[in-house]
Each structure stands twice: as C-alpha cells, then as structure tokens.
C-alpha cells in the first residue's frame, strides 16, 4: 500500500472541494444570503488551507496499483461527502449531521433521494450546493482531478477505472489526462445546452441551472415542492431528452464529434437502451391510459416516457406519482430501475452492457448443454468479450445480490411495508432516488432510523462506485503490511 500517495491524492481532493465550494458561495452573494455566504466562506478557507498544506509534500513514490486505485477512490468519495455535508449543518438547513451526510451522499452519488420533507424556506445557495453535488458526482471528482492536474503518471488509469462505471473502462484517446478532459468538455457542453434550452422554454435562470445540474448528473434533486411536475410540458420534454442523453455511453458523443457515426452506432448497449426505453414507454402509456390515469393519449405517453427515462437513467425526477399507477407499469419501472443506464454514462444501476453480457453468456451456457463440445464466445459491439470480463461481470452480479439482500434485511428492522423496504434499497443501490411506497416519487427518506440511513448511505456509495472500491477498502487485507 502506497500510503504517501493515498494521503497526497486525498489532500488534493480536499483542495478541489475548497475550490468547488466557491460556486455556492458566489450564489449566496448574488442572492444576498449573507449568513450562508459566511458559512461557505469559512469552510472554503479551512478546506483550502488543509488541502494546500497537506498536499504540499509530494509523495515519495507515485507508483500505485489497482488496490490503491480502488482504495483512494472509495476514501475520496467518503471524504468528499463528509466535507460536503458541513454546509447543510452550518447553515442550519439540516441540523443533524447524519441527515446532512445522507443528503450529501445522495447528492454526490447522483441518487437524489432526500430526507427533506419540504423545500420551503431553504436558501438558494444551499439548494444550489445540493444540485451542484449531483453535477460533481455525475462524472466523478477523480476524473476531474485527472483532467486538471498531472497525478499518478502512467498509473492514473487505476484511478479512472475505479471511478468510472461499466464492466470495461477504456480510454478514448491515449492519455488519461486528455480522455478525462474530453469527457468533462462533453459533460460541460451538454450541461450548457440544457441550461440554454430550459431557459428559453421559460424556466427562471436559477431553476434552469439547478435542474440542469440534477439532470446531466442523472441525480434527481428538485428545487421546489412540486418537483418537475410544476414546469411546462415543453420544459419536461427538454428534460426527458437530456436525461436520455446522459444515460448514454459518453464515448458515443466522442465518436459523433469526430464524425465517426459508424463506430458510434456499433455500440450494442446504446441500441438496446433506446429500444427498451421506447417499448417500455409505449406499454406503460397504454397501461395508464386504459386504467384512466390520464385522459389524453398524448399526455399518457409524455408522462410514461418521462417516468421510464427518469428511472432508466436513474435520475429519479417525477412528474406524476407513479406509485399510484397500475401494477404492470410499476413493475416495469421497478425492473428497469435495476438495469439502469449505459456503461460510461453518468447514470447508475447494473448497466445495460453487464446485462447484455450476462444474458448472452447464459444463452451460451444453455447451448453447451445441447452441444457439449461447442465453442462459443460472448459477443458485444462486434467483438468477442474477454473471458475475464465475463467472469468479473458474473462476480459483480453475485456481489450486487449479496449487498442487496443484506441491506434489505437491515432496513427491514424499521418494520415498514414490503414495497418500501425493498425499493428503498433498490433505489439507493442503483442511485435512482425514489422507489415505491413511503419512498415513492412524492415521499422521502426522513422516516428511516439512523441505522437504516447508514446502510442506505453505504448502498449509495457502493452503487455509484460499482461495489468493488468500497469492498476493497473495507477488506482488512488491503491495509495489512
């Protein structure tokens, strides 16, 4: 274990946090919320001093391996959350630190499940920080760090791989630094595009910015009690488009920008992603239209598509309370939420590419029973998938199920109904936010006990970092000499 490098990167994270906190500070100044501004200012000064002093001493050796990559990533996210929760407590928005931490982790992991019961009276700068955590967490803070500062030389891939979602994390250009830069530029571009679109569609600039942060990070924090339901149908349609775009593997945009449409459309999971999205929306709209939830077929499709995209991209925005929809619709949404978005996107969940690999591998295994001597590989995107990748995806599934079951058992101690217990774990582990029952689109997580909240926080972090970093960090062997 290269402790000096772990220390160095963690202090750099603190430094970056100090810089990121300047944005809500400026917002506080703009909206004349001077008390909050003071809190933010204090925190900025303290973090910057700690960060700069701590990272002043360069590490002895910059050599890190997969183990350090995972551990650093897990610790960085925990550290970020611990720091990010402080403004909520300092400004008095969420006086309890555990609750504030839940809210922050929910923000950074782009889950979007809240413990706040009402948005009334929450200052704009604090709201801004809440949604900004989505934006930071969407693409990842280590990727950001890799884009702006040269860090681990040739070994920085271990950091990028630990933070980026998907079964195989590759680069799009030879250098990690350039790859990270390209990803962040695309991310920034999509964010700006959405802000402009939403502003034109009639949203106030503050809402346009904050909702855009929530959308592109596929987070799901809204800034008023009505959620997205309070905005016009056009604004909602814009949000649907941007949610869908951010659930796509970002490599696609790189290919498109470089005028390589063939490569962009050769990615299997993107095809399935859009296919499933449209079919599910069609079935649900029919289901809710026939059940009489809405009078108009057009509106039924609009709201069904909104719910499907919101759940598939694991954003978790709501226009209508889908908890009141017919069972078939609820079940479809539930299942889609488990699969989640594409690898290499800002969305969470199990990921389409993993599902594709698992299903195709299962099909091959069935085939072996019929033709025991047959040789068949798993194909994806026109290439064979490495045997090691198939194995690691199966292992991931195992770990995922174990985490899910264990968390559900602990949350069950709170003695809520079946729907609430199961979907609260599903919604946090997949970084969606809303589930069904008490944690439905119009509900929140405030009623859970501290133990459950801690378990759900663990689930959110584990889900965002795709399990391995967190498990490797808590494995005692990682730390033994």
């Amino acid at each position: 274990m290269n402790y000096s490098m772990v220390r160095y990167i963690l202090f750099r994270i603190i430094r970056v946090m100090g810089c990121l906190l300047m944005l809500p500070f400026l917002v506080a100044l703009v909206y004349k919320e001077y008390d909050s501004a003071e809190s933010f200012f204090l925190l900025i000064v303290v973090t910057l001093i700690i960060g700069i002093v701590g990272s002043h001493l360069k590490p002895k050796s910059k050599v890190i391996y997969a183990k350090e990559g995972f551990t650093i990533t897990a610790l960085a996210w925990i550290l970020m959350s611990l720091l990010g929760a402080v403004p909520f407590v300092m400004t008095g928005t969420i006086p309890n630190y555990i609750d504030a931490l839940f809210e922050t982790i929910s923000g950074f992991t782009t889950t979007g499940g809240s413990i706040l019961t009402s948005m009334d009276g929450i200052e704009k700068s604090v709201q801004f920080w809440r949604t900004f955590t989505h934006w930071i967490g969407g693409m990842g803070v280590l990727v950001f760090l890799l884009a702006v500062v040269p860090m681990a030389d040739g070994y920085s891939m271990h950091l990028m791989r630990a933070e980026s979602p998907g079964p195989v994390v590759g680069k799009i250009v030879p250098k990690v630094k350039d790859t990270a830069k390209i990803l962040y530029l695309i991310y920034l571009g999509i964010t700006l595009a959405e802000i402009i679109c939403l502003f034109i569609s009639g949203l106030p600039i503050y809402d346009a910015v904050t909702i855009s942060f929530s959308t592109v990070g596929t987070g799901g924090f809204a800034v008023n009690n009505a959620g997205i339901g309070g905005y016009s149908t056009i604004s909602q349609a814009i949000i649907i488009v941007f949610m869908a775009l951010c659930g796509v593997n970002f490599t696609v945009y790189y290919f498109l920008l470089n005028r390589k449409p063939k490569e962009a459309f050769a990615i299997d999971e993107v095809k399935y992603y859009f296919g499933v999205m449209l079919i599910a929306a069609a079935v649900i709209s029919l289901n809710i239209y026939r059940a009489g939830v809405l009078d108009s077929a057009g509106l039924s499709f609009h709201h069904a598509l909104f719910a499907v995209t919101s759940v598939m991209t694991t954003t978790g925005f709501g226009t209508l309370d889908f908890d009141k929809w017919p069972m078939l619709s609820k079940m479809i949404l539930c299942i889609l939420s488990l699969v989640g978005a594409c690898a290499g996107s800002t969305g969470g969940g199990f990921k389409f590419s993993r599902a594709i690999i698992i299903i195709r591998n299962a099909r091959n295994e069935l085939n072996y029973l019929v033709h025991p001597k047959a040789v068949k590989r798993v194909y994806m995107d026109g290439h064979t998938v490495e045997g090691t990748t198939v194995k690691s995806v199966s292992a991931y599934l195992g770990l995922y199920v174990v985490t899910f079951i264990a968390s559900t058992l602990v949350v069950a101690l709170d003695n809520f109904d079946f729907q609430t217990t199961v979907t609260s774990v599903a919604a946090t582990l997949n970084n969606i936010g809303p589930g069904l029952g008490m944690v439905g689109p119009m509900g929140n997580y405030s009623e859970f006990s501290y133990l459950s909240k801690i378990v759900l926080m663990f689930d959110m972090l584990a889900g965002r970092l795709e399990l391995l970093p967190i498990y490797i960090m808590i494995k005692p062997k990682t730390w033994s000499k």
Partner: protein
Amino acid sequence: MQIIVVGCGNVGQTITQQLSKEGHDITVIEEKSSVVQNVVNSYDVMGLVGNGASYSMMKDAGIETADLMIAVTNSDELNLLCCLIAKKAGNCHTIARVRNPIYKKEINFIKEELGLSMVINPEEAAANEAERLLKFPSATKVETFFRGKAELVKLVIDEDSKLCDKALRDIPPELKKQVVITAVSRGSEVYIPDGNFILRAGDEITIIGESRNTMHFFRKLGLPTAKVHSTIIVGGGETSYYLAGHLLSLGIKVTIFERDAARCKELSELLPQALIINGDGTDKDMLMEEGVTSVESFVALTNLDEENIMLSMYVKSINPKAKLITKVHRVNYGDIIGSLGIGSIIYPKNITADRIVQFVRGRSASQDGNIEALYRLNDEKVEALEFIVSKDSPVIGIPLAQMKLKKGILIAAINHYGELISPTGESVIRERDSVIVVTTNTGLKDISDILEN
C-alpha cells in the same frame, strides 16, 4: 506526437515506456490481451488487442492522424507489411524492426521502396557496440559523434590512476589535451563536474573528444589502447554472427560456442574463418580446453541474462585480464549488474530505444531532424546529444561564458565545418555547426532548449 507501436515484446515495451515518458500520445497494438493489459496498467497509453497489420485495426488506432508507426513484432515480414499499410493509410513516418541477415543486404532497397523512415536491427546494433568495445578494450562504453570523428568513452578510475584524487582543474593539460570529462558516476549518483570536482577511485567517468585525442588520453594514463587479438563468444545467435563477421575482418581470432548442432553448421558456412564449437558454453572444461584462461576477451551472448552474467563472473575469476562483454535483455536490474564489476554490459533494447527516441525528438522540434545522435547513459540519468544548429537559432554568436544555460548542461564539443573545437568561455556557436551537449536535464529537443527560457 501521435505514435502507434505495433508489437509489444521486449523492445516494444521499452520504446513505449520511453516515449510515453516523453509525453507522446501512444497507441499500442498487440495480439496477446494479457500483454496489452499489462502495458495499459503501467504506462499512460492506449492498448488495442489484434493484428497490427490489419487495416481496420490501424484505423481504430488512428493511423489517419498518426505521425509515426513503429513495427516491432517478432516477424520481419509482418513489420514490413505494417509499414506498407501504415504508409498507404496514413502517410506517416514508419519504422520497422528487420533482423534477418538476408534482408539486411537488401535493406536500402527495401527502405527506399517501402518508404521507411528507419530500419532498426537490435542484434546488429548490439554487435556494433561490442565491436567498438573490443577495439578499445580499456573503455567500458564507446559511442561515436560527428560521423565517427569524435568519441564518447567511459572508463573506470582505479586507485593507481593518475587521475585519482585530483580536481579536474589540476589535471595537466598535456594529459587531457582537448578531451572533456563530461560526466562522473559515483555509486547511484551522476554528476556533471566543474573545475573543482575531485575524482575518486571507483568513479566511472565519461569523456568526449576527437578519436585520436581520446587514444592519447588513454595512452598517457597507461591504459592499453590496442584492440584485442582473440575472443571467445558464447551463444551463436544473430548478434554473434554480426559481431564475428566484423571481428574477423579486423583480423581478430574468433571462437564461438553454440549448443545447437544445426546452427553450428550454418555458422561455419557463413563464417568459414571462425572456430565454431558445438557445445555448451557454460561447461567449464570445454571453456578451459578452448583457452578461456588466456583469451584476451570474452563475450557472453546467450539468450539467458542469468547465464550471461554467471559466465562473465566466472571468466573474471579465472582470467581477470580479459575484456568482458555481457549482453543483458532485462533493463530493470541495471544498477545491480553494474555493481558486479563485470566490465561492459550491452542492452540491445536500449540501443534501439535510444535511436527511436532520437528520431522522435528530432521530429517533434520545430526543425526537422536536427538531432544527429542521442545516447542515454548511466541508467538514463544522463543524455549526450549531437545537435545541428539551424540558421536562426538563438544560441548563435554568443560566447559560451555569457550564455545563460539551464542547470546540468555541458557543451562538450563543437564541430565547425570538420574542425573540432574543444569549447572554452570564448567559444562561439555558429550556423550549421554540430554541437555535442551532455546533460542531466533530459528531454532536450533542440539546441535552443539548453538556454534558460
């Protein structure tokens, strides 16, 4: 620069490591996915699994925008095919490794017709280096500058040397005579010495000067300067073949040990004047029988590093006067092997990597191909470069004493239209001169890089 490296064996990895350290955008294509995984984890490069000679693979690697393609797979033919395709698909510079001696004879034709920028042959390069060392056995390393007019020579100072415990400024001029001591390595440290630097026993010094002056320097120090008269080579690979050919033409007696009988037959056909022994070179008795105790030089060129090192250590113990040359593939253990005191070590991979780094650096600067030679010394801590000074270079016309140089830079020699100048404070660099720079400040791309901003 955007560079594609096809084939990631020993040489491929060394090149990848070196070029990625210099900040280039590198994509590696290799057929074994485990190797690719390894490379991607250790260096900041992109890896692709597949056959590098395939057009679609090249396209995936970005051949259309690449500046250079280096083909170093195990097969000469595949390397040439890669170059051909890269040239047609991307019109970039191409470098191929070609090792087969049969192609060697036709290499100029191949180079011309396929439009190759460079052909590398690590075996031949290693043989050339060994040859230079056998011609100059007191030196541990010999490299040439100015197309052979000047030499870089390394030697170890022992306790009885006239140089031991002397400051550089106190070395009598008739001894030094236009030779510059450019670098001193002591333990794991390397110094670019100034006049006050005191030499100690055990230091390995690097000197640069005109060939006859370096000879003179050695003679004054009482070190032999004559070439060896006999040599034993263990291992009958391509390197041995090239080396034996050179040595025989110089009239040096050559004995080659080779295990494989078929290869022995081949060698005896190719090198009729050499004595080819079909036997295990690690067999003590056999070595004794062929006169290892009295031979003037011994070259270990088997394919196993461990065997080569053991052999050299053994010969050192029974024949301490013999000049020893040991071929080592793995570069990772350079410092340990250096401390064994078994004379000259040859790293074929490094020789090749040096030439490619030289090519790439020369092309990355504003002026094309302004680096004539580049040698990395002392575990890559020191570089010796030969630059050509272009017309409007900022270094022209300033006396060296007034030049604001970066730290760790020494101007070792200036070649002005064939006249070699040993630089003093008043010396001036002129247009079209060639200049040798020795530096610990590695990564220079142009002569103007020696100046402080």
